[in-house]
């Protein structure tokens, strides 16, 4: 699997659900490379913007697409990483705010 294939594969699955890739393609490709790097080192695609424990069970809420994506895209138009966004975010119909970490701290470590 390379990042280009992953891009096409995820796009075809996620877009019909209303989750679009960030219109900044370089930014997206870099994140997809990171997802593949995490798949290589942890065995699963942990969120590149969070510190994974390496334990799939502990990290299941941050396996991309993470458990927080829905709420973040609903509230901010973007997931925590900025990988998945809404159509309105890409069209700049809504402000591009910095998405705060929604994952409860007790989940961490």
């Amino acid at each position, binding site marked *: 699997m390379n990042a280009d294939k992953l891009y096409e594969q995820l796009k075809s699955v996620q877009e019909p659900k209303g989750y679009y890739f960030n219109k900044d393609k370089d*930014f997206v490709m*870099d*994140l997809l490379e*990171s997802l593949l*790097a*995490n798949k290589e080192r942890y065995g699963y695609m942990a969120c*590149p*913007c*969070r*510190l*994974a424990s390496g334990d799939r069970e502990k990290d299941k809420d941050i396996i991309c697409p993470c458990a927080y994506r829905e709420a973040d895209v609903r509230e901010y138009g973007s997931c925590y*990483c*900025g*990988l998945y966004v809404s159509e309105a975010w890409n069209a700049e119909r809504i402000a591009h705010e*910095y998405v*705060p*970490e929604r994952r409860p*701290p007790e989940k*961490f*470590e």
Partner: protein
Amino acid sequence: MTPPDVKMYTLSTCSHCKSTKKLLNDCNVAYDFVDVDLLDSDERKRILEEVKELNPKCSFPTIRIGEQVIVGYKENEIKEALGIP
């Protein structure tokens, strides 16, 4: 005026961490950083204690500029703390 001491806790894979490093590089700001995901487990534990003191959520990047702590790639706050117009 001496520039403030800048220390960043980052992840090697994180988009916001990369954006922050780029911002500091573009502004010619000297900084120390540690990619926490690349540390071995003892070192990682020790460094995470440092991060938690600055940012209990332990999210990345956590940036210390002098005495000020900024969590996330907040360009304007970072520039302000660095005194960059």
